[in-house]
């Protein structure tokens, strides 16, 4: 049986199935009779991907020379992690979207866009060449615009504008990065490009461009403004897949594009690390001043991705230990993706009316558990991921590693604070019990997500250092996981109790979601008014419609 499965899975056509199934289901919407099945089928379109991620042998590669610029699809260990988390989150997000109340409200076109975005996200994970990666990246980006602006209110439209503007900037800069790399390496294949002996100068250029291009997706500080707006604007399942799955497109992009383990780029690595650290702290700082739980989560993503970017920066500076560093990063990504998706789903659940006391408890549990995990409390997946990451950083030869070792626990305290803030903001009150039918798929999917976010990392084969699980269970590690949590909760408690403004007027201590985007919008408006005046004057003469 398993041989049979392996045989099938090692066939190149399996990639076609992984990517094409979501698109096929989306295409059903054009057939009048089949249209109503689209929402129902949406989550199941991820199944091939899930099966492949779990059971396909590594190194299955399909060369498709006639496709695009000569494409290659395949699966390596990196891809397996990302394919798994992507497929899982999409699947569960899709199930969440099955909730009757949501489905009736959303309509078929939400699911069409959902499926297209899904196809893009799965496709980019299995793409081993630049053009196909870029293609799926673009499909994902543009299709998800429809998800972000789903509810069409003015504030959502604004979020959509910011999202698409930033995304397009990211797209074109990424294009530049890829083009430069493809030329320097003489190939558009990621692996061959890494081995092609590109000059360090070109690598630097490519790295900086990709930092900007993919940085938009990853919410690198300075390019993160769209994130709080979009996450807040998007409906819960969409926000879950965006924060959990799509954000990792940037990560896999970097892993594929940059010469990890081949070339050491100290300056660029320093830039990554610096920006990552900045994001880790700024995310916490601004996130604490948010009033909406989804915005808090968004800033948490900024902060968490910052941590990972910092780790990548360290890895760029020390090529030697890359294989191990890769494992740590992958585990961290897996952990963060699942936990963040669980948080969003739980948050969505907390907004719903619950039918009974038991289900309220369930909601509360679903909120607290992934929050703890993200905070890195002992025995959570977060603890394992953080331990792995820290040990790798400590072993690296980077000049930044000491700094990181010192600063990361502080950032962890910040994360705890953020989580406290989040849980407080989305805590379901007592009055919320109603007799309405339970949004069962939503509840189930949220719970499954939470469970997965706990278990997967522990179960994942070859995750991080060989003895990571043991290391993470050691008393020292437990303490290392526990003290930031305790410290964070203590600070939060103290802060609320002692600092008057926090207690009395929390609303005055807020920053608008998307922080600097507000400034940019203002500046843009002023500039536009300046330029626009002339344009308006010119177009003031009524033009006859042309045919």
């Amino acid at each position: 049986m398993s041989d049979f499965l392996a045989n099938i899975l090692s066939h190149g056509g399996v990639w076609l199935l992984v990517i094409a199934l979501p698109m096929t289901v989306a295409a059903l919407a054009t057939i009048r009779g089949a249209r109503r099945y689209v929402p129902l089928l949406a989550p199941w379109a991820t199944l091939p991907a899930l099966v492949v991620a779990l059971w396909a042998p590594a190194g299955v590669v399909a060369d498709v020379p006639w496709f695009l610029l000569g494409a290659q699809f395949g699966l390596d260990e990196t891809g397996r992690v990302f394919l798994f988390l992507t497929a899982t989150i999409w699947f569960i997000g899709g199930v969440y979207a099955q909730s009757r109340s949501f489905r009736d409200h959303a309509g078929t076109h939400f699911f069409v866009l959902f499926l297209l975005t899904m196809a893009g996200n799965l496709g980019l994970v299995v793409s081993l060449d630049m053009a196909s990666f870029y293609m799926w990246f673009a499909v994902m980006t543009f299709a998800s615009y429809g998800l972000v602006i789903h509810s069409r209110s003015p504030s959502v439209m604004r979020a959509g504008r910011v999202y698409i503007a930033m995304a397009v900037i990211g797209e074109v800069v990424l294009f530049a990065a890829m083009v430069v790399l493809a030329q320097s390496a003489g190939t558009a294949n990621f692996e061959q490009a890494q081995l092609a002996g590109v000059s360090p100068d070109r690598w630097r250029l490519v790295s900086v461009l990709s930092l900007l291009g993919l940085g938009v997706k990853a919410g690198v500080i300075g390019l993160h403004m769209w994130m709080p707006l979009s996450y807040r604007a998007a409906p819960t399942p969409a926000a879950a897949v965006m924060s959990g799955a799509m954000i990792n497109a940037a990560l896999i992009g970097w892993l594929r594009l940059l010469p990890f383990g081949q070339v050491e780029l100290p300056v660029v690595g320093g830039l990554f690390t610096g920006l990552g650290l900045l994001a880790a702290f700024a995310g916490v700082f601004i996130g604490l001043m948010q009033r909406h739980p989804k915005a808090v989560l968004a800033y948490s993503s900024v902060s968490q991705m910052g941590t990972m970017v910092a780790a990548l920066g360290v890895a760029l500076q020390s090529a030697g230990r890359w294989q191990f560093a890769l494992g740590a990063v992958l585990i961290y990504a897996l952990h963060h993706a699942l936990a963040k998706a669980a948080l969003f789903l739980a948050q969505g659940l907390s907004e719903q009316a619950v039918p009974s006391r038991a289900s309220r408890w369930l909601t509360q549990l679903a909120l607290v558990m992934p929050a703890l995990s993200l905070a890195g409390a002992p025995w959570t997946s977060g603890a394992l991921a953080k331990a792995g990451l820290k040990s790798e950083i400590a072993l690296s030869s980077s000049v930044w590693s000491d700094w990181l070792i010192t600063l990361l626990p502080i950032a962890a305290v910040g994360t705890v604070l953020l989580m406290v803030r989040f849980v407080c903001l989305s805590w379901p009150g007592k009055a919320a019990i109603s007799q309405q039918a339970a949004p069962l798929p939503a509840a189930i999917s949220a719970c499954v997500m939470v469970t997965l976010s706990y278990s997967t990392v522990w179960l994942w084969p070859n995750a991080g250092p060989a003895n990571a699980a043991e290391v993470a269970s050691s008393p020292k590690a437990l303490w290392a996981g526990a003290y930031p949590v305790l410290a964070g909760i203590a600070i939060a408690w103290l802060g609320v109790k002692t600092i008057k403004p926090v207690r009395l007027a929390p609303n005055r201590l807020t920053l608008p979601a998307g922080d600097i985007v507000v400034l940019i919008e203002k500046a843009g408006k002023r500039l536009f008014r300046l330029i626009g005046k002339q344009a308006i004057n010119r177009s003031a003469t009524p033009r006859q419609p042309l045919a």
Partner: protein
Amino acid sequence: MTASVLMPLIVLLSSLVPAVLIFLLPADRHWLRGAMSLGGATLKLAIVAIMLWGVFHEQTYRLTIPFLPGLPLTLHADALSMFLITLSALLWLFTTIYAIGYLDNAPHRRRFFGFFSLCVSATVGIALAGDLLTFLVFYELLTLTTYPLVAHRGSAKALQAARTYLTYTLGGGAVLLLATVWLYHVAGTLAFREQGFLNGLVAEQGPTLTVIFFLLIAGFGVKAALVPLHGWLPKAMVAPAPVSALLHAVAVVKAGAFGIVRVVSDVYGIETSDQMGLLLPLTLAASFTIVYGSVRALAQDDLKRRLAYSTVSQVSYIALGLSLGSPIAALGGIVHLVHQGVMKITLFFCAGNLAESAGIYRVSQMRGIGRRMPWTMAAFTVAAFGMIGIPPLAGFVSKWHLGVGAAAANQGWVIAVLVTSGLLNAAYFLPIIHTAWFAVENSVNGKSDDHKDAAEAKWPLLAPALFTAALSMIIGLFATADASPLTWATLIMRREFGL
């Protein structure tokens, strides 16, 4: 032997004869006229397919007709000419179907279809021209045959636009004539040759050749809408949609761009012109045009006008690619000749559908039209994404090669131009897509009356748009497959660079 002479002739006549017959036919024989147009288009496509096969297998197709002293008209099919001719033959078929649907019950159809066919004959001549004189002959014929199409509606505005068009193009033609005669005087021949025919003259005639080069580029630049010679293009938008489609995708603008390609690659030779330092000014001009066209497009509310400025911008990719002097960039430029054509014709078909079926002429009127005309807007969306350069659509393939070529030529700033242009393209296309699909029809101010009774366009209008949209996806998706435009362009590029 005879086939090699006959083939180019048949290709030329397959639209010329229908044109003459259409003029002679009584004005009310609509059915017969349609049949002749379509028959000619189909025949042309079939012959072109045969010729494609032949050219690939290094067969010569050459027809010479005595014309001027020592300068016969030469119709010669090489890889590059097959490129344009395939594009025009294919798109002509679609445009004819579209035009038959579009002009249903419109006046002056005989005149329209007659000149329409003539226009394509001229394009075929341009594609097959084996020397600069033949090129010039058909180039001017193209100017003349498109005039009645631009002026077709006969309104004051159309006539004014046609006048502007004529002023620009005839002026360019005069410059071109001067340059051609001069070149003939200097070089003693005008026959296109891969890698150019001026190599031996550069040493002694360098400055003269430089002047001639810029005269030639200026002459072709008018039709290729290089800024500041682009003024006619946005105005020519008053023409009926099939004409705009033809103007922007197949014939006029393409002829200009094709002329630049011919001059750079087959008159001077890419490497020779690079050595002479002629290409940097061209790169600058093309880059400026790309950015300028996009910026102007941003401010247009009129849909077709926005598309027109987009053409100004996009067509310069072709010149840009040629001017970088690297094979990959040239590949990108040449392949954009076809890619831009397929995508832009889709956009104009869709714009025509919107105007015809829903009375929509402006972007601001398009709110929510995606729900009413989903197929039209789907085609539009695909083509617009292609224009932005999103894979897997055709535009991406061109841009990719341009970008790689720019990097290969160590002209990093050109990548910046591409990036800027991509941003700007997105900035003027995405709002349209947003408005059409996601904007809510506002019933306040009675504005929703714009397209209250709008239904999807009828099939002769819709089918060509869908087909070209699909085509722009297919040629991008299967860019490296056999017989894709990219593969063919690679063949051209190999021959041009002697690789």
